[in-house]
Structures are given as C-alpha cells and as structure tokens.
C-alpha cells in the first residue's frame, strides 16, 4: 500500500543525500503528538521501572553496604576499595582491550562480509547461513567447543597440525586474551554481518544508479552513499558491541577461567566471582555500578558522534 506515496519521496536526482537535522515536528512541539508519544511510552517505562530500574536502585543501595547479606552500612568503603584493588584494575584493563578489539573487529569484518554478500553471488544464501551459524548457539557451548579444540595437549587442532607436520600451538597459554577475542569474533561477526545486510537493504538503489551516472567509482560510492546511509546501523552495531564487549562474561567463565594469572579476567566475570564466590554483594554492586558509569559515558559519546554523522533523506 505504500507504493503510491513512496514513489514521490525518492528524490530522483539526489546523488548525495541532503543533510537535515529537523524531525517531522521540528518547528514546534505539537502537544497532541507529545501526549501520543508519552502514551505509547508509558507501558514500556512501567515495565522497565519494575524489571530494571528497581533492581538498579537496589544495586546502588547495596553498593554502600557490606557483609554476606549486604546489610551493614559501609559508606563509600566499597568504592574506595575498588580504586585500590589491583585485581580490579587488571580486569578493567583486560576488559577495555577486549571491548575495543571486539567492537572494531566486529564492525570491520562484519561490514566487509555484508558488502560481499550484498552482491549477486551464486550460493550467497549458503554463505550467509554458514557465517551466522556460530551465533545461533550459546557462548557456553562455543566456549566448551573451542577450549576442547585449542587445548595444547588434548585438542584436535594440535593433533591435526602435527599430523600435517606443522608446528603446534599453545595460544591459550601464550596469547590467552587474543585467543578469547578471536573466539568471540568467530561467534559474533555473522551477527554484525546480518545487521549490516539489513541496513544495506534500506539504501535505495536509485542513489547508486544516480551516482554511477555521475561517474562515481566503487570507492566513491562506498564512502559517499553506503557509509553515510548506513550510519544508523553502524551506530547501533558499535553501541551494542561496546555494551556487550564490556560486559562479556561467558568467554572467561568457560574457556580460560580468567587465567592464566588473570590475563583473561574479564570485568564482569571478576564481579560475578566477587558476588557468588566471595559472596560480597556490596562490593560486587559497587563494581557493577562503576562499570555502568563507564558504559554510560562510552554510549553517550557514541550517540553524540553518531548524531553528528546522521543524515536523513
């Protein structure tokens, strides 16, 4: 049903999209639409209030407490302790490296694969399926599987390498963090690829046709059409990748147990151990809240940068 209205909107000659920062109701805040918006949002925020904000409030209040039941008021103790805790510093560093590497890797590899698979290639359905399957199972299973494959003494990979007369690997000992990052990317690039593919579907073909008529080459088309029009998707992928990367947990829990000697001690894995191994819910809450603040900052910065790059057409 949208066909008749849409034909008029695609600007036929627009070789490059027009930069515009106005929404549909930019001139004035129309009261009717404001009320409609709040009406739509009300049930959602009631739900989030109950299922998220209350628990978050609970976390903040426990972060000022200590003891096995987190029932003894401790002031700022948990926070001052966090800043002096060498293990926390270590796991924070590990996690930032992990988060940055998995974010950049997921975007670069995922976008490359999406661009390749957005071409008319024979068998692309099979390729897409093959790339996404690792994401269709759980981190726990992926972790178990790769731990099993990569074990230097017992894994199938070294057995195959030595059968082929190749040198064997001990990556879990020598490059544990890089290995965990690699396994994570192995699992998640298919997922970013799918998001980018869905984003690419939304770019009208006419823009490319018009640009080609204007004599733009493939690189120019990529930089001037694909990338700007893909900005909402890229923003989404990078925000989510940072949020997920800084909260990654299962990889350390299953593959390395955080070792050797804390080199893959991902932050949330560390906090989980504080909460459930050491049973220090107060300290764990403070640590969670600190990471929460870090992620909020990361996200706000990304949204600011993203909004600047956003285009509407």
């Amino acid at each position: 049903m949208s066909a008749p209205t849409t034909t008029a909107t695609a600007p036929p000659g627009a070789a490059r999209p027009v930069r515009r920062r106005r929404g549909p109701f930019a001139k004035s805040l129309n009261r009717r639409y404001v009320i409609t918006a709040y009406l739509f949002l009300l049930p959602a925020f009631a739900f989030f209030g109950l299922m998220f904000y209350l628990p978050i409030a609970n976390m903040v209040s426990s972060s000022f407490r200590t003891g096995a039941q987190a029932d003894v008021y401790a002031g700022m103790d948990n926070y001052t302790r966090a800043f002096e805790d060498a293990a926390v510093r270590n796991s924070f560093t590990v996690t930032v490296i992990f988060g940055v590497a998995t974010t950049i890797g997921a975007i670069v590899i995922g976008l490359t694969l999406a661009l390749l698979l957005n071409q008319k290639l024979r068998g692309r359905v099979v390729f897409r399926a093959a790339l996404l399957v690792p994401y269709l199972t759980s981190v726990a299973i992926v972790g178990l599987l790769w731990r099993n494959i990569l074990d230097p003494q017992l894994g199938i990979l070294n057995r195959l390498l030595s059968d082929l007369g190749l040198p064997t690997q001990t990556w879990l000992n020598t490059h544990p963090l890089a290995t965990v990052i690699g396994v994570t990317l192995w699992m998640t690039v298919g997922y970013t690829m799918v998001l980018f593919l869905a984003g690419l579907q939304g770019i009208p073909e006419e823009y490319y046709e018009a640009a080609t008529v204007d004599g733009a080459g493939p690189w120019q088309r990529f930089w001037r059409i694909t990338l700007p029009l893909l900005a909402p998707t890229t923003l989404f992928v990078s925000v989510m990748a940072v949020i997920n990367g800084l909260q990654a947990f299962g990889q350390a829990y299953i593959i390395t147990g955080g070792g050797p000697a804390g080199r893959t001690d991902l932050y949330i894995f560390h906090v989980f151990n504080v909460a459930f191994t050491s049973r220090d819910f107060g300290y764990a809450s403070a640590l969670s809240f600190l990471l929460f603040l870090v992620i909020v900052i990361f996200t706000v910065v990304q949204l600011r940068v993203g909004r600047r790059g956003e285009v509407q057409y």
Partner: protein
Amino acid sequence: MRSAPNPLARTASYTFLILVCAVTVVPLLYMGALSLQTEAETLAANPVLWPESPQWGNYAELFERAPFGNFIVNSLIVAGGITLAHLVFDPLVGYVFAKFRFPLRNTLFIALLATMMIPLFVRMIPLYVMMSNLGWLDTHQALIVPFLMDAFGIFLMRQFIQPIPDDLIHAARIDGASELRIYARVILPQVKPALAVLGLFTFVHQWNEFLWPLVATSSEEMRTIPVGLALFKQEYFTLWHLTAAGSVILFVPTVLIFLFSQRYFVRGITLSGLK
C-alpha cells in the same frame, strides 16, 4: 543488489568467503562428530575426529537420562513467547523514539539504553524475590515476564525506522489516519527486514539463556535446554558425547528460524518497500 564488477574481484570474493565460512563451519561439524562418538572416544587424550561407528544412540540417551522432551517444550514456550512480545512492543517504542519529538526524549532514550548496562546477575536476586512474592517461581511466566521487551530491540527498531522519510507519515496524517494506524500500515511494512532480524536475535538470545532459568526454576521438568544440559556433566568431567548431542539439538530450532527469517532481510531490493 549490485553485481560484482569483474571476474577477478568475483573470484577473490568467492575465495575469501569460502575460507571464512570454512573457519566458521568446521568447528561446528566437529561438534556434530563429537555427538556421535562413544564416551571413550570423547575422553581420549588423542582426540578422535570421526567416530569408528556413529553412535546415534547418544541422542536417545539424552531422552532416557533426563526429561529432555520437557526441556525442548519449555525452551520453545519461553523463547517463542518472549520473541512474540518483542515483535509487538519493541517496534512501537522504537517508532516513538525515532519519529516523535517530545521533552526529555534524549534523556529517556539514554535511560532506556542504561537498562542494557548492568549484567543480568545484578538484576537476578531482586527479580527472584519479586517472582517469589508473586508465587511465580518455577512457572513459565517467571521465565517470560522479566524479558517482555528490551532496549536492544527498541534501539534496533529506532535505528531502522529513522531513515523512513517523514513525508510518508505526513501524507498519512493528512489522509486522517490514526497514529496506531500509521504505525501499523505505514511504518511496519517498511521495516520487515529489521523485524525479521529482531525476531531472529531475540529468539536466539532467549533460547540460549542460562542464568535466569537456572535460578527461576526449581523442578527438573521446568528446566530449559541450556540448564538441562548441565545435568550431563559429572563432578569432575563433562560427558562430552551427550553434551555435544544436546548442543546439536539446541541448534536445530535456531537454524530453522534463521532459514525462515533470512528470506526477509536478505531479499533483493526490488522487492522491498522502498522503490
């Protein structure tokens, strides 16, 4: 959909894709092979690539050792129910954030994203208390209700609704359509690819969720597959042949859902709404 420009680039594309796909698929085939090995073969220090004789009985053993049928049904109810809820709620809220202007919009949006920034285990105990007070522990609703919508889905839909031309909405308003009708008839048809992606990923996440079903269920019959799989570990070692078989079963529905949904998000541009 653009065609590859020249044969050389085409060959390079194929080679690259085949290599990457080999890396993604081969480890999973190995898991399939593990699921057909005997216990002794999976425990062997000289790992076995392919079993001497495939042990299809491993799959039957899953059902003998535990109420695995229940696990599958529970997982389907929970992941399916949550996915449906997301498909209803997430696009609506995403639409509001994408196309409405109202005071506190950015603040509320950040507040929404903030819900993704605490790990589940921090929410877990308050939620557990809540479910216990409601008398919902060990029921399907305890597994479904805390996940009825999430910021991931809303954010995803907002990003995909944002590029839809505002003129479409204006035109519909001028025609006198109600806001809900605009949403259902103008917006939703435009974002089918994103809806397919949302449905797929929501299902995958929930299907594989471990921590909450572990805590919120208290009878074996109510466990979901990931929690149920924990039964196939001994105190000091994993029963790999059964774990791998269970993992293969865990795969089947998500792969089916993918094959079903991918038609929507990867079909040619000529079929999509924007033309």
